[in-house]
């Protein structure tokens, strides 16, 4: 039993999109599928030349926040969305009726329709693939050249993720909604 989460040192992101490619390759996501399991938000440079605000031109990688209190799970009429024993929010394909209520309720726009099964899909922290093979990293984390992501057990005080969260300031997205996300952005 673990309580998996992820830390993103997002200021290190160079928008190479290797994470998106690795995710697609590892989890069999359709090529060309934009912003499916993970994506990189891009900030346009603000201001007018020569008074450009260079701090606005940053990248923010994101994905399902694996909320402890996931709205997508609450709204699912058939309990197709569930939190597994490791705190990962997942979808049971057999039970999904494609009412798309979860897509409407997710504050992070983290869900999409998987064209092959015609059910709603999302990031699984590579539960069915890498973690099932005994690996301890996700594909996006493993491939990142600037080491933006740290994946691990939030309940293990000796894990790298717990250590980083103890010593670095961080924030969560839309924490005011009470979703208790398990993705943390380092400042």
């Amino acid at each position, binding site marked *: 039993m673990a309580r998996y989460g992820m830390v993103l040192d997002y200021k290190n992101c160079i928008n190479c999109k290797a994470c998106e490619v690795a995710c697609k390759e590892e989890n069999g996501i359709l090529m060309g599928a934009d912003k499916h399991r993970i994506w990189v938000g891009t900030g346009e440079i603000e201001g007018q030349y020569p008074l450009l605000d260079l701090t606005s031109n940053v990248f923010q990688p994101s994905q399902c926040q694996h909320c402890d209190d996931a709205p997508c799970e609450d*709204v*699912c009429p058939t309990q197709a969305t569930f939190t597994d024993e490791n705190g990962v929010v997942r979808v049971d394909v057999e039970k*999904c*009726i494609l009412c798309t*209520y979860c897509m409407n309720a997710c504050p*992070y726009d983290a869900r999409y*329709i998987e064209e092959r099964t015609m059910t709603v899909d999302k990031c699984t922290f590579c539960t069915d693939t890498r973690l099932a093979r005994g690996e301890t990293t996700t594909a996006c984390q493993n491939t990142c050249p600037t080491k933006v992501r740290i994946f691990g057990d939030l309940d293990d005080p000796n894990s790298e993720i717990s250590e980083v969260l103890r010593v670095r300031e961080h924030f969560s997205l839309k924490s005011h909604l009470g979703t208790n996300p398990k993705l943390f952005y380092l400042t």
Partner: protein
Amino acid sequence: MKIGFINIPFKEGFTIKSLFSFEKTPTNLLVAVFTLALLASFVVGVAMFLTHGHHAYNVTREHPWGLLLAVYIFFVVSSTGLCIIGSLGDVFGFKDYMMISKRAIFGSIVTILAGFAVILFEIGHPVTMLIYNVLSPGLTSAIWWMGTLYGLYLTFMIIEFYFLLNNDMKKAKIFGLTGLLVGLAAHSNLGSVFGFLNARPISNGVYYPTYFILTAFITGVFLAFIVMGFRYKLNFPAKAKVMLEGLAKIQGLLISILIFFVTWKMLTDIYGGMPNRSEVAVHILGSWTFQAEVLLAMVLPLLVVLTTMGRKPVLMFWASMIGMVGIFFMRYNLVHDTQLKPLQMLKIKEYQLAPEWIHYFPSPAEMLISAGGLGLCIAMYYVGTKMFNLDEEEGH
């Protein structure tokens, strides 16, 4: 006809053949052709869906709910409204409204069936829904409660209608009251499907669960004028005039309350410029569909009530026809407007291109299936008028 202990009193002379015989007036022929065209559109729409699946629809990841959901809501709101109207006589004992009870309850059955027929093609896996709705119910889901309660509601409505047909008013009252309460619960749960969306400030809150009940009542009154108008070919007998005058006055009050509701909803949304709510409300105010909703479902019918004091049922019939067009826009707006704002923009720290609104326009398949829902509704109602005596029994 008697099947075991069940006695279904069909109308005298009813045969399958009698379904095809009707008075060949220009109006009747027009309605018949119109209904057949709508039914044909349903077949074509469903064929497009079966061929292309959900790709036949213009719904997207950013706008997952489209016209079919709006039309489903349109029909189930109509059903709840007719149930309220039907209950006035046989449940609450208002004698003047007894004459419409059976017709309204039958109307509530056909409208919800039409709604189910439309949503059947919106839900991706309806068979899975039937199985896992029972095997693993999501008790925190407003959709689960709404769907389950509507299923129960339909059952109670059918039983109530059966007892009304058999003039067993005592049992009709018991099942009518139970059905009404379950229907109101189902309907407010439908409102909470939107009200529970914490991620979307424009819809989140108590407003929709209560507003749905109010607008159901208004829809029910509009439909009462329409079905009675067709029943009496706009040549209303004195008894019907008394009932319709009462309904028109009730409608005036209900629409006034609705205008009050909508005004305060808009003011609250805009006040203070709260991000993700204020600008959405301003955008809604500027949309022609919202203006159509206000004009057709609120302003025009209210003007007719106020200028005639409800004493002109023929005028109210036409105002109700226009009102139902307004109610359609009301449902469409509800679904579309709550998805206007891209969710990724709502992230506290998300870096995106300049915000823009989510665009949606229904696909031909969505339009054809939706139109077909209306065709099914009219066809089922017509069959009902041929099969059963929907008028009040003499002596009751």
